């Protein structure tokens, strides 16, 4: 059974970009379009191996989602933040909240895949 990666981004284009890279490599991909939806998909896909999450999103931003998920379940799915943001202040906050990675958009597909393999393991 393929490992599942949850992609949380308000841009459908970005979700599709990430999906193409990961699905081609053999991962199952679940999409969420904002922080609320992300929380729901994380809850529905407790077996997921990784969440790739934007920061600036409507309703609930990515760091607030990470904080919420961490408060509910300290051993939650690992998060990689995928964002245009690059400030050390935000990166430090993400680390404090338990994020396992940070990628600045636009991403390079091979680099994204390498990061996913490192954190989630091989697709099957």
């Amino acid at each position: 059974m393929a490992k599942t990666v949850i992609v949380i981004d308000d841009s459908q284009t970005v979700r599709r970009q990430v999906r193409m890279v990961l699905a081609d490599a053999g991962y199952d991909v679940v999409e969420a379009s904002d922080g609320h939806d992300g929380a729901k998909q994380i809850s529905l896909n407790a077996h997921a191996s990784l969440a790739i999450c934007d920061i600036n999103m409507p309703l609930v931003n990515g760091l607030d989602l990470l904080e919420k998920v961490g408060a509910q379940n300290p051993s939650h799915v690992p998060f990689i933040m995928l964002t245009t943001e690059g400030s050390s202040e935000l990166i430090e906050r993400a680390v404090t909240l338990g994020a396992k990675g940070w990628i600045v958009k636009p991403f390079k597909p091979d680099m994204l895949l390498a990061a996913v393999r490192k954190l989630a393991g091989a697709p099957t």
Partner: protein
Amino acid sequence: MLRGIFSDVVQEFFFSYGLDCAPRADGELEASEADTELGSMIAIRGGDRHGSLAFVASMGLVASMLPVSTQAELLEMQQRDWCLEMANQLLGRLKNKLAAYELAFDIGSPVCFSGKCIRLVFQPGAGVALSFTVASQHFRGYLDWSIEGDASPVTSGRIRIAAEGEIYLF
């Protein structure tokens, strides 16, 4: 200062997608009436100062940049979605550059609009409007924000900004 930084942001954004981007002289903001244009605007919120970044581009330029395969029945929706992400990435780049000046702000949620010969008008004396030729098509960028006084970059090295494409694993 802001004009130069904004111009750099726009050019670097397009270069990162492999597109030539050259500034045009002031006053060359006109678009052909035949061109359908797409644009996006995104809010800047920082302390007691609020503003926005916006752009208007030919639909052809937006379509040519779509980083995913297109579907005819969904093309307009795909272009609008990509427009929103372009605004997000442009403002993210601006934010990262201004962090070197210890200027911080929050990024709002972008909105998208379309039309012909779209004009964005600032209050007199406010804002930056720039025009570019990108891959033989037009792009206009607008920044409605200001910096008080003469901001200069912090050189102590204590501000670290992650660059595009960089990956950190913790």
